[in-house]
């Protein structure tokens, strides 16, 4: 039997050419920044890795060499392109750039690099879990704009239940709250076929309003409802003895370990199980699954509720994993950052993890920067992660396509 294969010629579309060009220009821009901004401060920067060892980077030469390399890479990209290696080259360059930036900021002094990385991992937990919740929903065809509300609501529930009944019950209560808010999303978007973005936004308002209302009306008069001691980091045997990595990855609270687990399980399940196959199918083309007897509605309900539970753990991180209490709007937009991580990571748990770590790093740098005198206003540092997201989404993710059926109500008929 004859088959028609698409003819592939070495011509590339305008779209691809534009993408390649923007990657090249990014290299050049980073290179120029490295040359003129990062290269303007002499002095050595100490990166404290362990108590007994400080790795010293001479800030100025490092930045200048980096600048040359980046501009060369940019030229190479603009002229020829790295093909499938583009992302690898870009990632390594970006990481080196960040190190150069840190060296610039810390020149003439030293700071705990390991501690900063540890903070990075810690602070990315709610973003990772929020993003996993987003992926679970969107892969099943339900847009989840409500991650922020789910995180906030469950942070509240975790704080109150944790204060009254202990941290474990607190986590369970947070998960229950996540599931509860998710069930609103599920019922409205699946059963009542309401526009998913509208319900999502309404849930965000609802969670913000209700938690603020209850915090003002109940928690202010009953401070004992809102105080608990957060979980302590647990050093994993053996693993935590590895220098640097042991502290960064394996001396953390249970929340961090849960996040690792969630990413691993979500990745494996999505791509290697029956559940994952069906989930991806109902997110791409639910009718195809429906006509084969898969119960699209039921699976969507299940996955959205599961997402709520995951987001619930993410919300519990604030009171139980970090600060020991609830404050009004404590999540402060982290749910939207998680949404960005979903898209940034192209609806893939590992991708979302990487994106979440970038945001976590930005937060950790901010914490450290307040101790270092850099001469640039702190507001610009605070702005950096948002700017990076903007550039990445605009320049590299661009027209990436999410699950095709996301946002569409499913009609069993």
């Amino acid at each position, binding site marked *: 039997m004859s088959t028609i294969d698409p003819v592939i010629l070495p011509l590339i579309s305008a779209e691809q050419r534009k993408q390649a060009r923007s990657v090249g220009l990014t290299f050049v821009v980073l290179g120029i920044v490295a040359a003129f901004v990062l290269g303007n401060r002499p002095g050595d920067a100490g990166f404290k890795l362990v108590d007994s060892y400080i790795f010293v980077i001479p800030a100025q030469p490092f930045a200048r060499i980096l600048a040359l390399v980046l501009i060369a890479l940019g030229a190479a990209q603009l002229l020829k392109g790295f093909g499938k290696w583009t992302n690898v080259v870009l990632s390594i360059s970006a990481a080196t750039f960040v190190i150069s930036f840190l060296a610039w900021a810390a020149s003439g002094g030293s700071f705990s690099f390991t501690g900063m990385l540890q903070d990075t991992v810690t602070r990315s937990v709610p973003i990772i879990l929020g993003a996993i919740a987003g992926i679970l929903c969107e892969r099943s065809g339900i847009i989840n704009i409500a991650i922020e509300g789910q995180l906030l609501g469950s942070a509240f529930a975790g704080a109150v239940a944790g204060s009254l009944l202990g941290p474990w019950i607190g986590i369970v209560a947070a998960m229950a709250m996540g599931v509860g808010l998710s069930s609103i999303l599920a019922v409205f978007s699946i059963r009542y076929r309401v526009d998913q973005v509208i319900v999502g936004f*309404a849930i965000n308002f609802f969670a913000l*309003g209700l938690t603020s209302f209850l915090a003002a009306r109940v928690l202010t008069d009953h401070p004992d409802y809102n105080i608990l001691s957060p979980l302590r980091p647990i050093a994993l045997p053996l693993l935590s003895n590895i220098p640097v990595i042991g502290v960064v990855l394996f001396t953390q609270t249970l929340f961090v370990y849960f996040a690792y687990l969630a990413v691993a399980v979500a990745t494996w399940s999505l791509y290697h199980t029956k559940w994952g196959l069906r989930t991806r199918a109902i997110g791409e083309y639910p009718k195809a699954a429906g006509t084969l007897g898969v119960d699209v509605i039921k699976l969507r309900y299940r996955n959205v509720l599961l997402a709520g539970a995951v987001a619930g753990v993410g919300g519990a991180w604030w009171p139980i994993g970090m600060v020991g209490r609830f404050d009004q709007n404590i999540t402060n937009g982290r749910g939207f950052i998680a949404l960005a991580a979903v898209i940034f990571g192209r609806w893939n748990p590992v991708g979302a993890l990487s994106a979440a770590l970038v945001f976590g790093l930005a937060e950790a740098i901010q914490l450290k920067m307040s101790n270092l005198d850099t001469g640039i206003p702190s*507001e610009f540092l605070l702005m950096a992660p948002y700017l990076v997201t903007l550039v990445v989404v605009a320049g590299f993710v661009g027209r990436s*396509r999410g699950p095709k059926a996301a*946002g569409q109500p499913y009609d069993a008929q």
Partner: protein
Amino acid sequence: MKIVATLRRLADRIARTSSLRITLLAILSAMVVGAFIIILSDIDKLKNGDILGAVHTVGSAYWALVVGSFGSLRAISATINSATPLILCGVSVAVAFKAGLFNIGATGQMLAGGMAALWVGFSMDGPVIIQVPLAVLAGAVGGAAYGAIPGVLKARTGAHEVITTIMLNNMAGFLVLWLLKTNMFQRTDRTDPISKLVAAPGRLPRLFGFMDNRPDLVAHAGFIVAILAVIVYWWFLNRSTSGFEFRAFGMNADAAQYAGMHTKRLTVMAMMFAGAFAGLAGAAEVLGTYGYASQNFAGNIGFDAIAIALLGRSTPLGTLLAALLFGALQAGGRQMQVDTDVPIDLIVVLRALIVMFIAAPLLIKSIWRIKVSPTSLGQTFKGWGS
């Protein structure tokens, strides 16, 4: 005769679409849920078994809502004052919706417009008749410029405006914070981030200034700007060539392209329009309500505006009415907090519930057992890709 016919057509339309009935029932449903929340959160009374007392609180809280929003000239003035930026930002979100774009960035655009208006406001010292309109215009221009960013990004690279506007909101917040610490903006005798004052003649005049300039009548001429904005929006949508393009593009981008419309230009234009309206809101707040800028003068208005545009189905009249409702809740909520100790955050809950109920006419239908033809709010989201 013509008026009678018009009225009859209007009555027909209300009866046919029944969206008014749905709206009223949605508000009622939200109030009922809100009542439960008030009662259940009154834990001290409940612990003492004083259920009647808790129920009584609901009555006085809701009464305060009404009195605080419409009960006196002062209350009406407060409602108008709260509604002013909501109307403008509501139109901002609505106009983007009409063009098929989701503007979450009204907050950032409002900040940008407000800062631009503020700068003109305190640095100019011209005749009032020129300076005030110029400052307001600066607000629109500042907002439009900030709104253009996600528009250009979407048109050029396809970056989804939901993500880019969220990022731009956060960035605008920090930019404002930084600006408020610079010599250009910071008040000379202050160390905290707060701006110079706009001199009294440079501010938007009080709406009820003719009544002995009572200080408690806070409404200002920004409200007139807002009403004008709604009229402009209506005219633009229904009478202008570009408005037709907006509607066609918003409903079917492929068909718009097929019809020869410049869809990229429309995307940028829509976001600029949206930004301009939000910028006006910023100008109204800075030049009217406060007379200066602090770090967070945009508050949650940009987000409330999304609920307003959804509630008003992005139509000019609907958006105006929804914003007035939200403004009334805001003004009444302040009174409620003072009178009854019920925190004003209840208003946010009520707003969320109203939007949810309105978005789900089928739910309202089954709760109240009424027969209506459900009118959908339409689909706002068209997928992440393009």
